[in-house]
Each structure stands twice: as C-alpha cells, then as structure tokens.
C-alpha cells in the first residue's frame, strides 16, 4: 500500500509539473506582461530595464524553472489589477469558496445517497417516480438558471433569503467564516443549493443504479436466505457495496464543485476564488489566472489521491498485503 501511495504521489507531481507548464506558457506568452504592467507614458528604455529585472529576457527553460520554484513557495507574482501578491489574494478569497463548496457537497452527498437508496428500494412507489422526474430537471437545467430561479422565488417574491453576497463574516485571523453569523448562514443557503443540485442528481442516479445492481447479486440473496433483517441487508450489505463507485464520482465532483463554483459565485456575487478569476479574466490579470489554474489542478490531484486511498479503506480486495491465498 505504501508503494502504491508513493507511486501515486509521483504521478501527482508529474501532473502538477505539466499544469505548471501550461500555466507558465499562459503567464509568459499570452500578451506581454510588461505591457500590462506599465502605463502608456512609460519610456521604452524603462520597459527594457523592467523586462531585464523581471528576468523576462532569460531562456525559457530558466524562466520555467524559476516559475516552478516560485510556485512551490506559493509565489505567483503580483496581480496586475490589484497590485497585491496573488497568493495573498487567493488565500483571502479561498475560505468563501471552500465553505460554499463544502456546504453544497454535503447537501449533494446526504440527499443524493438518501434519495438514491430510497428510489432503489422502492422503485415502484409514486414518490420515487416523482423524485426521478424531478432529478431530470436537476441534470438538464443550467446552474445559472436554477440560481436565478431560486433568487426570484426566495429573495424577490418571498423575501426569505438574501440574493447576493456572503452576509457578515467573522475573522478568525487566518480564516474568515460566514458560518458563525445568522446572515452568513442565510446567505449560504441559496448558492449552496444551486451549486449542489447537479451533483445531487448525479449522485442520486449513480447510487440508485449501483444499488439496483447490488441488490440482484448472489450475496444479497444469500444474506436474505440467512434471515438477516431487511435493514441490515439494505443499509449494511448493499449500501457498502454501492459506495466504491460513489466515492470516486463524489470525489471528482467535489473537485469540480470548487472549480466550477465560478458560475454560482457570479450569479450570487459570492466573494470567492471563482469570482476573483472571472474579474481577472475580464482585465487579463494573467498572474491570477495562472495561479488559479495551478490551484484548481492541485485540488483535483489531491482529491484523486484521497479517493484512491479511500478505495483501500472500503474494499479489502485491493489491500494486497496480509492475504494468504486468493484467486
């Protein structure tokens, strides 16, 4: 298992290096960094001096290595637009995005698994049919439309929940959270639901399909023949066996929840990393874009790693050590 983790870590490093290359190419060759930094009245000689001082005249390989070296220290340069270190900017926006992503992942996971199990166990009930039909809406409607629809119902018409922003936040020094204030929690509800809906339906349909598959297996029949209770069979034996593929998808989806929170953050003006990225794109703030790319890649790589390790926890067949005989 240790060998496996080391191998996966090495793979992760390779992936990160490749993403760094892309980020570097964008950073270096999309537009002229100097042109973005200086005003029209800066003299050409001064621009040359800056170019030299920033190392932009060095060979590309040296520049790339320098970029990677800096990135490893969390150094991505200065935002053109805000004149602040990019890392600081992203870190200040990160708590908002992570809280949002985490909340919606929780909603998606809890409701997705519960509804999936329910529709699998009672495939003929009216409620299951209703849930399955409703889930079609979840997969087919675009996120922004759902967001706007929710805003219209719960903010405009009913006036129950705020339509934008993050509410009051509490500064814990290294983390600004909206989870401790009432307005913060209220503000979280709509964007979290919006962001979770697609994942929720996906997880639900996956759990349902897997569960139906597992319920047909011999070991479930044998569990019935042994007279185990319905609850032990459904929620012990069957559910545990559906979890392996569910873990994969959920893990990958958590990555995309963070990565694609962009749309939701824009609709709800949520002050997270996604909206920082959107505004950076508008003004071609290349360092922020490059850093964001690296950040999202890191998230995906880390989550994949965790998912792979979770397999070992759930499925004993993958643990190669400690077995005497096998097939």
């Amino acid at each position, binding site marked *: 298992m240790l060998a496996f983790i080391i191998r996966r870590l090495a793979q992760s490093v390779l992936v990160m290096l490749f993403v760094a290359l892309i980020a570097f190419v964008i950073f270096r060759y999309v537009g002229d960094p100097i042109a973005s930094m200086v005003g029209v009245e800066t003299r050409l000689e001064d621009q040359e001096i800056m170019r030299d001082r920033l190392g932009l005249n060095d060979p590309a390989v040296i520049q790339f290595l320098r970029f990677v070296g800096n990135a490893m220290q969390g150094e991505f340069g200065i935002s053109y637009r805000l004149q602040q270190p990019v890392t600081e900017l992203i870190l200040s926006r990160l708590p908002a995005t992570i809280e949002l992503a985490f909340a919606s992942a929780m909603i998606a996971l809890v409701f997705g698994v519960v509804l999936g199990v329910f529709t699998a166990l009672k495939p003929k009930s009216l409620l299951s049919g209703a849930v399955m039909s409703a889930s079609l809406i979840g997969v087919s409607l675009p996120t922004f439309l759902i967001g706007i629809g929710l805003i219209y119902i719960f903010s405009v018409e009913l006036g129950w929940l705020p339509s934008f922003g993050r509410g009051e936040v509490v500064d814990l020094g290294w983390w600004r959270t909206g989870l401790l204030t009432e307005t913060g929690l209220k503000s979280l509800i709509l964007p979290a639901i919006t962001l979770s809906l697609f994942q929720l339906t996906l997880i639900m349909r996956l759990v349902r399909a897997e569960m139906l598959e597992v319920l047909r297996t011999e070991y479930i029949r044998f569990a019935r023949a042994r*007279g*185990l209770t*319905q609850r032990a069979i459904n929620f012990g*034996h069957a559910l545990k066996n559906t979890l392996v593929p569910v873990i994969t998808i959920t893990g990958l989806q958590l990555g995309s929840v963070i990565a694609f929170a962009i749309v939701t953050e824009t609709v709800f003006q949520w002050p997270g990393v996604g909206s920082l990225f959107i505004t950076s794109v508008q003004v071609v703030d290349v360092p922020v874009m490059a850093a964001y790319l690296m950040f999202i890649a890191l998230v995906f790589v880390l989550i994949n790693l965790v998912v792979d390790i979770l397999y070992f926890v759930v499925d004993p067949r993958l643990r190669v050590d400690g*077995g005497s005989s096998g097939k």
Partner: protein
Amino acid sequence: MTEPLLSVRGLTVEFPTRHGILTAVEDIDLDIMPGEVLGMVGESGAGKSMTGNAIIGLIEPPGRIARGEVLLKGQRIDNLPPDEMRAIRGRRIGMIFQDPLTSLNPLYRISDQLVETIRTHLPLSRDAALKRAIGLLDDVGIPDAARRIDDYPHQFSGGMRQRVVIALALCAEPDLVIADEPTTALDVSVQAQIIEVMKQLCAERGAAILLVTHDMGVIAETADRVAVMYAGRIAEIGPVRDVIKHAMHPYTAGLMGAIPRLGENLDRLSQIPGAMPRLSAIPQGCAFNPRCPRVMDRCRVDRPGLLEPVPGRRVACWLYPEEAQA
C-alpha cells in the same frame, strides 16, 4: 409413522410474463423426514432450484406461489408475513447456494458475516457468537480457524469459501438445509469433500437436507430418497437405491442409462432423444410424451398424477395401474 419435518402440497409457482403466465413448478408434493437427505435431480430448468426457493420464500418477483402450501412441522409457512418468514430463514431452514465465489459479501470479514447471522437468530453476546463462529469454522474443516476468521472472502479458495457458506447456513442449527447445487461451481476433487462435510455436520445436528443437483452420482452417494423432476413436475420419487436400480418412469430410466459405468465398453453413451420443452411450450398430456420410448395414446391427452404403484415409491406415469393410486 413420524411426522414429516417439511411437507410440500400441490406447490405451483408461476411467472406472469407479457406472453401469458409461465408455470415454472407445478403441483409438487413431497415430504422430508427429520434428518433425512432428499435429493432432487433434473435437467436445467426442470424447476429444482425454484422449488427450493419457494420453500424458503425467496422467489424473485414477479414470480409467485400460485397454489399449494408448505408446512414446516405442520405449521404453514408459505403465507407468513415477511418478518416471520425472515425469522425462519437461517434459523429453521438454512440455505447453501451454488457459487461460493459470489455468495459471500466481499467487503465483510468472515467473522462479521458469521457473527451477524448468529446474533440475528440467537440471543448471544458478540464474544459468545464469535466463539461459536470459530467452532463452526473448525467443524467445516477450515484449518487454523481462530486466525482465518478475520480474513475476507477473497482470501479463501473456492472450496474453503463453500465451507464458510455451509458454516453460515448451519450457524443457527436449522432443522432443514436446502443445498442448491452446492458443488456445481467447484473442482471435482473438492466436490466430494464438501458433500462429506455437509452431510456429516447435518447428521450430527439432526438436520435434514434437500439436496438440489443435476449430478446423479452425488445423489447416489448422499441421498436417502430422490425426487426426479421434469418440466416443473415430479416424475418419480422414491428411495435412492430402488430408483437407481429399477427406475419406473421412462425419463428416470433414460437418465440412468445415460450414466457411464466402469467396466462397460460402449461405443457411445445412450441418450434421451430431444430436449426438455420450454416452459412456454409444454405439450398436452404428459410433458415427457414427445421423448418417451413407451408413449401411449393416453399420454398425449391426459397428464398423469403421482401414483403409488409400490409402497414408498411414487411415479407420474400411465404405465402403472391406476387402481394402485393411494
């Protein structure tokens, strides 16, 4: 005469399909005495497994028991509410399935599966249940049971897994074990051991066995009586020795003739011409009549019931005088 442990009366299992109702098992009558081993043979699709599943109440919908009853020590069990039937499964009737590779949940330790089953049926503490589980594994012949019990199913070979399955079926000391082709998926060299373990353990506990198989050899060595099934009905039922030596039903005779014997030099094995009809196309009269070498006019019109021409032997065939019907 002692009361039978299990009585099946007129059992009929039907599957409604788009093209009408298929009758998988029709009008099955049989008794199993306490401690007896009843073999059940027949070709694939003859309804052997379906009969076993019907007895234990595990017919997959849309299949259903259309008629008949199943009595366990005189108590009717085919119409019990699901929860009461569940309490009987595993506790009073154990079941062994065909494929040990798929019968065990791959994600649970052997110990968990055993302890869970034991504690579902018996009021034991976890420790006591674990002790019992280790004892059971010992009994079914798993070496070093105390250490192996915490392994997962994939760490056992096929034969060892079937031993675990037997332990699971026996863990609450049932009165009857339904073994549905328990050795079909195993290597020939392991089959005899598994049958031996099963037979011995059931004998020690006084449990009866309903042994479903298509292997006449296994039946000959193991069973006290045998029921031969054809196209969802019992063709013949009687003591194993008698049925093998003097088959009464032409189908049974054909089956026996198809078994190769040592010391006999045949150019080719005899076989029964034709194939068993599909459930949707069972002929009128006796289901065996198109293949029967001794077919009579009556066989094409009337379906024979089970008669008892000789005490203890019953056969569904018009060759035997009707007045012998009990």
